């Protein structure tokens, strides 16, 4: 259970980008969470609400998109859906030289909001 500290890191990133771009208010934060990451989206959404309370991000909504895991074969190069049973074998050539290329991410994809509101 480390969603609270993750929410704090997330808020720092959003705050920095919003300040740099002059976005105020931020309305939606789009986050990509891989299914292999040890993050519980519901717990993260709750932590985000708590962390942003009474801050400039208070009105923002966290939109979490789950990302299915994908693996790539080091021998034949094929990319395939990483199976739910974690079987690390290429479905095409049988190689065990498998690398997970998607599904572990925890990435701020984009933020949406107003720019130039109340500015000059």
């Amino acid at each position: 259970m480390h969603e609270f500290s993750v929410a704090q890191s997330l808020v720092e990133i959003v705050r920095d980008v919003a300040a740099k771009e002059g976005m105020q208010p931020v309305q939606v934060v789009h986050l990509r969470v891989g299914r292999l990451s040890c993050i519980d989206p519901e717990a993260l959404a709750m932590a985000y609400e708590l962390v942003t309370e009474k801050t400039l991000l208070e009105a923002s909504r966290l939109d979490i998109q789950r990302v299915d895991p994908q693996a790539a074969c080091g021998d034949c190069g094929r990319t395939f859906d990483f199976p739910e049973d974690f079987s690390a074998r290429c479905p095409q050539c049988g190689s065990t030289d498998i690398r997970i290329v998607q599904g572990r991410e925890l990435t701020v994809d984009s933020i949406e909001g107003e720019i130039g509101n109340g500015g000059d």
Partner: protein
Amino acid sequence: MVEIKVLQNVLKANDAIAAENRKRFKETGVYVIDLMSSPGAGKTTLLEQTAKRLAGEIPFGVIEGDLATAADAERVAAHGVPVLQINTGKGCHLDANQIHNALQHFDLEGLQLLFIENVGNLVCPAEFDLGQQTKVLILSTPEGDDKPEKYPVMFQQCPTLVINKIDLLPYVPFDLDKVRALVRKIQPEGRILELSCSTGEGMDAWIDFLRDQVSRSVR
């Protein structure tokens, strides 16, 4: 409403510090193992036994991560091993910054091997890079043989699995063949070491594994 692309990893701060740690380990030629397991699987006991066998041969240090107490650090320190305890409070894992700070208390130049004993937990420590060269997972037989299926991410992350407490196999429902097969599926090229810290069975293979890893990373 305007949308701005960000594309930033939320754990980038941790990963940046982990990369710094890794660089430092490489420069000083210290081989670093992130040791993980559930609570009570025998991480500290394995380190104690390792200290007895590597004494005078391979100088190593230990960073201990626990929610509270310095009990584990005291146990390891009793064997003459330099050790630093990190108490994470309610934290379920160690992070790269805690390791970075802990390194100030170690004379890395004088070490060849460093164990980071992570917080006992089969979930969260898999998420946080510490800068280690490898991850070793311990599974003890009383925990049951269903753990690879229940916590596949952790097993997928650790190329070496130690199955501890094999002296208890006659007394606990733990199908060794089943676990071997499950782990082989997730880690076809992985290493499985079966041992007992109580009887010493299998300890030679563990020590040989450490010698081999250390000799590959000498400066």
